[in-house]
């Protein structure tokens, strides 16, 4: 074998703390190395040309590039090899930037380490063999998990481009949190008026199949060919027949059911449609409060329903779908603020959450848009808003900023003044974070035009005194303690990842952070991709976002799906495990360890059990190879012998420098 070594300076990134020419000089002495040089920027056009030139001139069979992380430029150099007529897997990279120059300051030691990394790369390369990718078909259908505004946008963009979309929504209606909002900032336009038409589009689009009241049960397969099982929860109403007339809801005698859409501001009937603009507009029963399902008595809705669609016997059903890509848009949940015992921990009825307040201000909400105190129904004249409840607070393990609470608080304070002109509003804040277009202007308008009193400081406690609430906090600008008496306190609760998000991430085989938010593949350059090919992210499942950003990300995820689907065939990665059938004794330890279920058992001609790797499912993690007692299963490009060669190269008895 004839090997060429190229040591990159990466400008001063590497050259400042590694003696690149001497690394190249040392490499010339390694076995099979016939050419070595150093270059300013290996990835640049002249750099790549020089590699191609050298391959041709020195008839090289393999190339070692000592430069940055392979995450950065491995594809670049592989393409260069291909242009020179070599197989793309005849490349090895030694990471002398992230692993050497960026982490060590001692030039002498760095040079030694860089040389060693090149040595082991060359040793491994000597055992490389050309690998060839297979092609496979793509199922051009996409699964969108979550029907909030981000999911809706992704679904509509894909559907408009002619792609079949399966949308799975956990609630009985799509719309997500945005559907609950009264107005949106900073334009103060009606939230459901701008979202409503999009929801209708989802319902009417010929390319979209909507499964509401459903959850993703199981996902298997790989990019281009996912198999998805969806659990459609029993709603006890036959949705094919239900016309959404709402008669059942009026007649249901159980009126104590928790109204999730209205955030529990007022109770509702056990059967019903969650809100007037719901999509799909179908009724469902909350089994917990249904007298028929709990005690076997009642059944009024079944008698009243003109289309006879109530079905108390209904069971969950499972549907299977095949898709080529998945967009996760599962949104967020509100932080459970009741851990703040100093704010009453849920014991004071007149301390409400921002989303409850939003429902109280909404004309179609339980109070018909009149702001009333939950305790006595009176109109509050002094409303205190407390920001950062469950945001930027290490004490409750939520050190991150939820991003949009400053803005919605300003909006709610402005709207309060519109609803109750003779009211006074106070906002306790830590900083005002309003970086969006027109955002800062809006928070200023709240203060200057609407006279909302902004007090910088945290609130230490809220306690009831007679029928008012005393809000005690610090004014850190004035350097004093302040006490404000309030008729109503609104907590700007922060956000956290949606319930069960880590569980879904495991099904999707994507990573999630400490707080349960899904991880993007790269925080700057791959914000909607994940580390699992074919799975994309949109909206708050990835981290706190406001509506414009969520919509933008929904469209971005759709664009990624369309890019994927632009090809008719996808190439598989040949860096996967293969079984040497002669060595395999059929113990099937590998099937048990493979986390992806990529190894199946087959019978050879003599009827003996053997393992076989399903090429498209194997992720190339290599777990099986260490399990196999016979070394029969080998990860291509990372065989036992290649790894041993690396170790041997590193552990030579004497190193000459």
């Amino acid at each position, binding site marked *: 074998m004839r090997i060429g070594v190229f040591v990159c300076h990466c400008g001063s990134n590497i050259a400042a703390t590694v003696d690149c020419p001497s690394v190249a000089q040392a490499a010339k002495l390694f076995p099979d190395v016939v050419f070595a040089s150093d270059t300013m920027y290996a990835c640049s056009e002249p750099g790549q040309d020089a590699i191609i030139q050298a391959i041709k001139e020195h008839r090289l069979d393999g190339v070692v590039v000592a430069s940055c992380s392979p995450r950065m430029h491995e594809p670049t150099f592989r393409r260069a090899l291909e242009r020179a007529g070599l197989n793309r897997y005849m490349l090895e990279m030694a990471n002398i930037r992230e692993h050497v120059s960026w982490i060590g300051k001692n030039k002498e030691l760095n040079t030694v380490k860089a040389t060693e990394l090149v040595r082991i790369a060359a040793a491994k390369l000597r055992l490389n063999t050309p690998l060839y990718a297979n092609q496979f078909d793509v199922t051009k259908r996409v699964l969108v998990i979550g029907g909030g505004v981000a999911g809706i946008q992704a679904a509509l963009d894909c559907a408009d481009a002619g792609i079949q979309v399966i949308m799975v929504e956990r609630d009985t209606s799509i719309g997500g949190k945005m559907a609950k909002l009264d107005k949106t900032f900073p334009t103060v336009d009606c939230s459901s008026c701008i979202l409503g038409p999009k929801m209708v589009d989802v319902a009417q689009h010929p390319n979209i199949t909507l499964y509401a009241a459903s959850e993703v049960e199981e996902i298997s397969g790989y990019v281009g060919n996912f198999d998805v099982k969806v659990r459609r929860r029993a709603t006890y109403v036959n949705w094919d027949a239900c016309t959404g007339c709402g008669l059942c809801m009026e007649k249901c005698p159980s009126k104590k059911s928790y109204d999730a859409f209205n955030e529990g501001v007022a109770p509702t009937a056990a059967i019903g449609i969650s809100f007037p603009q719901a999509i799909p507009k179908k009724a469902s029963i909350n089994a917990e409060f249904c007298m028929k399902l709990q005690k076997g008595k009642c059944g009024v809705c079944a008698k009243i329903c003109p289309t006879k669609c109530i079905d108390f016997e209904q069971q969950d059903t499972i549907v299977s779908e095949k898709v080529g890509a998945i967009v996760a848009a599962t949104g967020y949940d509100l932080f459970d603020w009741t851990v*703040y015992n*100093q704010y*009453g921990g849920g014991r004071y009825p007149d301390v409400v959450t921002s989303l409850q307040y939003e429902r109280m201000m909404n004309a179609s909400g339980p109070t018909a848009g009149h702001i009333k105190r939950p305790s006595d129904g009176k109109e509050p004249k002094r409303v205190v808003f407390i920001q950062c409840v469950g945001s930027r607070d290490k004490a409750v393990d939520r050190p991150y900023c939820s991003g949009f609470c400053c803005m919605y608080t300003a909006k709610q304070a402005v709207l309060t003044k519109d609803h109750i002109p003779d009211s006074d509003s106070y906002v306790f804040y830590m900083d005002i974070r309003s970086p969006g277009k027109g955002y800062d202007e809006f928070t200023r308008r709240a203060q200057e035009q609407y006279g909302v009193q902004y007090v910088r400081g945290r609130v230490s406690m809220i*306690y*009831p*005194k*007679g029928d008012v609430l005393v809000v005690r906090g610090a004014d850190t600008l004035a350097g004093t303690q302040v006490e404000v008496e309030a008729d109503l306190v609104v907590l700007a609760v922060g956000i956290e990842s949606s319930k069960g998000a880590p569980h879904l991430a495991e099904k999707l085989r994507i990573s999630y952070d400490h707080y349960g938010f899904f991880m993007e593949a790269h925080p700057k350059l791959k914000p909607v991709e994940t580390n699992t090919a074919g799975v994309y992210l949109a909206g708050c499942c990835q981290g706190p976002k406001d509506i414009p950003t969520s919509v933008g990300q929904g469209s971005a995820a759709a664009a990624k799906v369309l890019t994927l689907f632009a090809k008719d065939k996808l190439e598989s990665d040949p860096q996967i495990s293969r079984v040497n059938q002669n060595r395999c004794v059929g113990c099937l330890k590998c099937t048990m360890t493979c986390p992806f279920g990529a190894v199946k058992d087959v019978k050879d001609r003599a009827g003996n059990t053997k393992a076989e790797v399903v090429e498209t499912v194997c992720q190339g993690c290599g777990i099986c190879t260490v399990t196999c007692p016979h070394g029969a299963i080998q990860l291509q490009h990372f065989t036992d012998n290649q790894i041993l060669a690396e170790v041997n190269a590193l552990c030579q008895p004497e190193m000459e420098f």
Partner: protein
Amino acid sequence: MSQRIGYYPGCSGAGTSMEYDASTRAVCARLGLALQEVPDWSCCGSTPAHTVDHVLSAALSARNLELAAEAGLETVTTPCPSCLANLRVAGHKMEKEGFRNQVKALLETECASLATVKSTLQVLLEDVGPEAVKAKVVRPLSKLRVACYYGCIMNRPPEVMQFDDPEHPMSMDTLLEACGAEVLPFPLKVECCGAAAGMPRKDIVTELSGRLLDVAAGMGVDAIVTACPLCQMNLDLRQGQVNSARGTSHAIPVFYFTQLMGLAMGLSSSEMGISKLAVDPKPCLEQAGVL
């Protein structure tokens, strides 16, 4: 059930709050908790020592904890939250090797083992339990509406005290409910009464204590129940001062929780030191039928 446990009365128990000390001993005895006083105990240094010298302050407490351990007492209980804070903080700090060495040098002992400290509230709740309390009640306090006031240091800082919720403790509420009292949710149960500023800034005390009394009165309580000698003194003894400073006319009796528990268990009012209270508790106890 008979359990032996160390007992640290603290200086206030031997002086200003003798009725707390007496009622604690009597109630524990009634509940089968054999209290054994820490032999030769000294002051823990409470308020002043730690403001002067942390090592000296810890040494005062460590000495008591070592004496207890030597007497074979693994756990020591104290009714006073200020003693509790000092003893626990000392134990907490002594976990650090360097600090421990400084204390050892001062005490000229090894400090090989130190007893752990729990508030009497914690022991009554965890080791005895509300069920056992209920079983001993002979005169339920069912006609009594009370507010439980824990004060600002009983459960704080949480990482040192490691008992009950620092913002919304419920242990005293639970015990008094077990005695049949109606416990109203007191929103200021962990607010400061101003005790530490008692000498230099009377205006602060009257303001802070006054607020507590106002809110409790607004809730319509018959009595306030405390677990701290200083809180009790501020609310009870200074109630007149508060009234004249703020133009109010409160007359709310302020009990130690052990006093009310004892009365419910049939112990006599003289054993409970009821006569030592400043605001006359008689009308309240009479209407509750426990006098």
